[in-house]
């Protein structure tokens, strides 16, 4: 059985603890009982929009430090955020270059760490190494657990719920060489939604950016919000009850931006929260009160009121 290590990043623990609860619940003994461990020394991935944008050397050092921790435990890093996925996955690609790897390891030596990758097999005396595996929660759900199992675990099908999927750019295009889904026709989150019994609604410009990435939200929030407004208009036109995403930063953007242009707003949740609901969790554990857009309308519909 594959072994994983949770990588929650910055936004989930510090802004949306309900997502952390949902992920732990879905992966834990109430759910799929995965072999997944906390590595407490993980730091920020670090954020691509800040560190990758301002100094790639620093970004690579900090990302490598996290990778070394996964390497030590011989576990796949289970990210729950598109930003963490792209940052760590890109770092594994950068470290394939021996010159760069040497330079990184010379600095990592100062903190007693070394990135080598994980040994895959031995050929004669040589050990063949492979990069530390970096996975996305959605990818683990559909590929390792499988839609059939998700369907089997759905004890409370969300039959009357219409959900609009937002994938997020770094889910679609994490690096130049690797993808976890078809960037032009992604299906994985939609399939999870359907395995939970809900309907995934199609809407115009579904693959558009939420507007927050690359530091745009922090730098010119109005610009980010106007992109989100377009998306929300299309989602509302499709008659969705909620927005489901695999990225807490997109979630944060939808959740915060809607205040700027609408009174009610469409509730937004992480795919793990939707899954936990379909698996019969008490909604009170999902921390919806930390979301700015109230999930009240959604939960009422779920109860069939």
């Amino acid at each position: 059985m594959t072994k994983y290590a949770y990588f929650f990043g910055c936004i989930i623990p510090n802004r949306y603890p309900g997502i952390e609860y949902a992920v732990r619940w879905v992966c834990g003994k109430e759910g799929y009982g995965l072999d997944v461990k906390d590595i407490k020394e993980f730091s920020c991935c670090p954020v691509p929009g800040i560190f990758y944008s301002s100094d790639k050397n620093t970004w690579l050092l900090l990302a490598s430090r996290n990778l070394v921790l996964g390497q030590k435990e011989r576990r796949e890093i289970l990210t729950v955020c598109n930003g963490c996925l792209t940052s760590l996955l890109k770092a594994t690609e950068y470290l394939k270059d021996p010159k760069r790897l040497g330079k990184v390891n010379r600095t990592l030596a100062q903190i007693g760490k070394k990135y080598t990758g994980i040994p895959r097999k031995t050929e004669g005396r040589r050990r063949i190494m492979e990069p530390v595996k970096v996975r996305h929660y959605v990818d683990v759900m559909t590929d390792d657990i499988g839609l059939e199992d998700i369907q089997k675990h759905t004890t409370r099908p969300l039959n009357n719920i219409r959900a609009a999927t937002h994938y997020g750019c770094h889910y679609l295009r994490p690096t130049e060489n690797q993808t976890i889904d078809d960037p032009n026709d992604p299906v994985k989150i939609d399939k999870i939604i359907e395995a939970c019994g809900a309907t995934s609604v199609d809407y115009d410009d579904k693959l558009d950016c939420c507007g927050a990435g690359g530091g745009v939200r922090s730098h010119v929030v109005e610009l980010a919000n106007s992109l989100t407004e377009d998306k929300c208009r299309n989602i509302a036109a499709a008659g969705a009850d909620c927005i489901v995403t695999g990225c807490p930063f997109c979630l944060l953007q939808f959740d915060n931006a809607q205040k700027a242009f609408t009174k009610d707003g469409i509730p937004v949740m992480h795919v793990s929260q939707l899954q936990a609901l379909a698996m019969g969790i008490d909604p009170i554990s999902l921390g919806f009160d930390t979301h700015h857009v109230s999930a009240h309308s959604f939960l009422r519909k779920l109860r069939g009121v």
Partner: protein
Amino acid sequence: MGEVEKTFLSGLHEKLVEDKVIDESQLEPGFAKEIVEYGGKDVMTCLQCGNCTGVCPISLKIDYKIRSIIKFCQFGLKKFTLGTRWVCATCYRCYEHCPADINPAEVMIALRHMAIREGVIPPFIKVAATNLVKYGQSVKPDLEIEKIRKELELEDVPSRAMEYAKVIREINVLVHAAGYDKLIGIEKEVKA
């Protein structure tokens, strides 16, 4: 977009120099090379097809045409690339649609590297970097959220744990070794 930029983009840059609308000294021939040094690809191979601008979500909202930026980079007209360095959402759609495989988003990231080195550092970078060396995370812990974590019976956020002091020390060592603290000007109050 100004008249000068418009004419320039129609391909008449020699005429602009001739007419003294732009000064030849403004053209930095080494600019494209500098972009490669910061991890961007060779902008000289750009075909100016415009696919990147066509799919750019930001270009719908403000006067920001990534194709123009690439053209300015080709000729080394740095000053026209200055205003829009931080509006790219790095969605990488331009990369997906670029027939010349240039990855314009990475060019924007290289331009950002240059900006930082010229001392143009947006405040949000400083905030995130300071949070990182202080808490090990780019987002500051929030007391209200920590209360809710307790209610949900989740453990404290990592930065609250005693053992996390070692992590913060390690991060500081790396940040210092890369010279990032100096580059960004992170305040020196952060001894864990």
